[in-house]
């Protein structure tokens, strides 16, 4: 197994953190090989933001950059438009259906109304990223739920653990129903 994942969205949505959490879950809690990279640059301010993760259960991941993502987790239309073309055909695209209108045909799309649900059910728009992550995990089983939860607990500010865990679980639930 060697999977390239791109998590992308708008600056401020927490897509970098989502990538780091995913990589951490794989590398620290599952003993998998994992590399996370992201794009730095002045143009990243406020514009499209992305976090790339490669996960593998084989040997050390050498070339660390994602070229053709197997999976795209995407939270803004701009990011969708920018990165959708890179996804492998038959790849998986998990998108925030509150904000993204999918268009490409030859990939599997799963919509998750993450931002909407984050506001409605958790009262906190900024945990939409965790909803997306929970959904993505549920759909791929790339890491176990416990590993993901542990990684989230390591990474979020004290006091916010509970909300974040709720968001993960909510994502998982939404994913179950969600394929379109």
């Amino acid at each position, binding site marked *: 197994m060697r999977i390239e994942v791109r998590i992308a969205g*708008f600056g401020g949505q927490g897509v970098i953190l989502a990538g780091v959490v995913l990589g951490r879950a794989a590398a620290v809690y599952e003993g998998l090989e994992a590399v996370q990279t992201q794009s730095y640059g002045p143009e990243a301010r406020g514009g499209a933001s992305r976090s790339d993760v490669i996960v593998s259960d084989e040997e050390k991941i050498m070339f660390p950059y994602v070229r053709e993502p197997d999976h795209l987790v995407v939270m803004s239309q*701009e990011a969708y438009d920018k990165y959708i073309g890179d996804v492998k055909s038959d790849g998986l695209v998990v998108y925030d259906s509150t904000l993204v209108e999918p268009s490409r045909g030859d990939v599997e799309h799963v919509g998750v109304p993450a931002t909407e649900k984050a506001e409605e059910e958790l009262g906190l728009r900024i945990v939409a990223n965790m909803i997306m992550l929970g959904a993505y995990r549920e759909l791929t089983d790339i890491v176990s739920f416990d590993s993901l939860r542990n990684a989230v607990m390591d990474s979020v500010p004290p006091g916010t653990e509970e909300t974040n865990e709720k968001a993960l679980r909510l994502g998982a639930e939404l994913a179950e129903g969600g394929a379109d």
Partner: protein
Amino acid sequence: MRIKEEFCKGCFLCVWVCPVDALDESDRRNEKGYRLPEQVGRCTGCRQCEMICPDVAIEVVEADEG
């Protein structure tokens, strides 16, 4: 009052600076997803919004009712 919507980044400094509350936040978003301001009251043409806008995205054409 003309807002160059494609340049606006939704910081609302214009709303803050306007001495007569002629501007307010709207729910409209531009292509990049930034929320836009809108004129809601009488503009006296003082041009403070024009000058404070960090993105040079407002042009006060003339004082008007909005």
